[in-house]
């Protein structure tokens, strides 16, 4: 919790990455020459690598038009393989987000409870699900659904993928929420107590609403994780998501695996960028609101708190 103490300073620092940093002086003539030299060297190195990659791909016929053309000229590639798969990815990710957020909030609040049993229970759940690879959670869920429920085989992979994602990400989000609440100035709780609010009221009306803004950066990076992790469901559960669409696609177009994987990777990047841009815009709007304290919880701050088995770090 080192970064989140006082509002203004924390905010100024997180904005620092784009602005000229304080790590070096405004460059004078010599420094500028040196920077230029570095720029040129780096550019040369980058260009060399790019050229080498392209030449290498070309030499092995991986840049042949017939390998890439279908994505541009054949609309059926998109209709049959990519778009339905993209839809499945989006559905799974969106469902997982919607379920993981409230569950995570609940677990996070439970970990801050005054009752030791509640704290320990929530703590165990969180640590357990964070320690296991998501893929194993999904496999478990899939087997359990097949064994004990009548969920139809068509939708079972979706359920299993979402379940695995929710269990894991709710545990991570629980830590985000906990960090977000702890990041608020202690005065907020004191003031709430002073006007006679009960614990539940303090949480619902004072702490949670304010911490949402503080938590957004960490929330966003977790949402990206959810989107990417849907791909795990394709390999072993037969969930028809974006990455899994590579297989039938490359079988049809002469094993153009490199082209297929590249296109899918680009789609993932675009999807995630859309998500983060939207979230960043939302964050800016929320932060402009008067109720924000300006505290910020980044993903790293949360991780910082979330070391297994450790009690929350004391506030500075």
């Amino acid at each position, binding site marked *: 919790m080192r970064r989140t103490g006082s509002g203004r300073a924390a905010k100024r620092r997180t904005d620092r990455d784009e602005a000229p940093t304080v790590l070096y002086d405004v460059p004078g003539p010599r420094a500028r020459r040196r920077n230029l030299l570095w720029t040129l060297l780096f550019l040369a190195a980058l260009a060399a690598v790019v050229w080498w990659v392209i030449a290498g791909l070309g030499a092995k016929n991986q840049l042949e038009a017939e390998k890439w053309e279908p994505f541009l000229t054949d609309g059926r590639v998109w209709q*049959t393989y990519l778009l339905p798969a993209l839809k499945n990815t989006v559905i799974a990710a969106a469902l997982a987000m919607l379920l993981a957020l409230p569950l995570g909030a609940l677990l996070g609040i439970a970990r801050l409870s005054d009752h030791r049993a509640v704290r320990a229970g929530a703590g165990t759940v969180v640590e357990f699900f964070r320690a296991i690879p998501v893929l194993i959670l999904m496999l478990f869920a899939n087997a359990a659904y097949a064994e004990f429920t009548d969920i139809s085989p068509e939708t079972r992979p979706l359920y299993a993928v979402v379940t695995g994602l929710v269990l894991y990400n709710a545990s991570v989000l629980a830590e985000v929420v906990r960090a977000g609440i702890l990041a608020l100035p202690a005065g907020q709780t004191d003031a709430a107590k002073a006007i006679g609010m009960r614990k539940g009221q303090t949480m619902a009306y004072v702490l949670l609403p304010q911490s949402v803004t503080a938590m957004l950066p960490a929330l966003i990076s977790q949402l990206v994780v959810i989107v990417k992790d849907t791909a795990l469901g394709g390999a072993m559960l037969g969930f028809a998501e974006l990455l899994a669409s590579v*297989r*039938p696609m490359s079988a049809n177009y002469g094993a153009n695996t490199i082209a297929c994987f590249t296109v899918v990777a680009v789609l993932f990047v675009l999807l995630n960028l859309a998500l983060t841009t939207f979230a960043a815009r939302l964050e800016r709007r929320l932060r402009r609101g008067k109720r924000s304290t300006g505290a910020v919880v980044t993903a790293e701050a949360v991780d910082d708190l979330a070391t297994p088995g450790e009690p929350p770090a004391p506030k500075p």
Partner: protein
Amino acid sequence: MNPLRTTRTLVASATAVVLALGTASFAQGAVPADHGDDDRITIGIKFDQPGIGLKTPDGTYTGFDVDVATYVAKQLGHEPNEIVWKEAKSADRETMLQRGDVDFIAASYSINDERAEKVDFAGPYLLAHQDVLIRADDDSVKRPSDLNDKRLCSVTGSTSAQNVKDDIAPDAQLQEYGGYSECLTGLENGVIDALTTDDSILAGYAAQEEFKGKFKLGGFELSNENYGIGVQKGSDLKDKINTALEKMVDDGSWDAAVKKNFGPANYQNEPAPKIGVIVE
């Protein structure tokens, strides 16, 4: 702005979006393999094996397995438009049958003792052999023993590559990927020397437009693979499917399907196997 209200609106609108997407997808014909409903039949096939079972860009399915399954389904009283195709990856096949996710599976499914403990097989309907696919200009592989210092490729969990390594070419190296396409990229690029699996599958790849003249089959007949149609253990479908398969051979549809799917690949297929006779 009230952050709480914003969150609420956000959650509400997101829910709406998901629900809309969700209902749309479920309405689009993701019909469960409900065995009480007699109109639909769910069949497991391969989606990524040209000549055997392939999901084409049109969204239709082609291949020998697909034709056999369609014929069998018709004999069972299901029109082609009542078939729900489902991808049956090699590793998932027994589980899919045991769970009742599909009614039957025709997915280059070789009958063996281990599998027969878990599921029942109708057929066999095709006798294939394990073989290798090599580059057309590669003259160094003439006998199976020539594979000894070569780099082999197959898919994860496949027994065929392991068989070659254990029995014929102990010094060969083995690369495993999730799918055959990755192996083909390696074969094309010269990093992999031979892709090994059933000749029926290899022929399909070799016949693809993009690979014309690039690859050839070794023709080694390293094993006998009796393709059967997998059904749930104890299912009464087994006898019905056997009857259908016999009829398919008798009325010439079997030959037509072989010609249609393996003809372009110049694949020397074995004659139609006798039902219930497994060639060891």
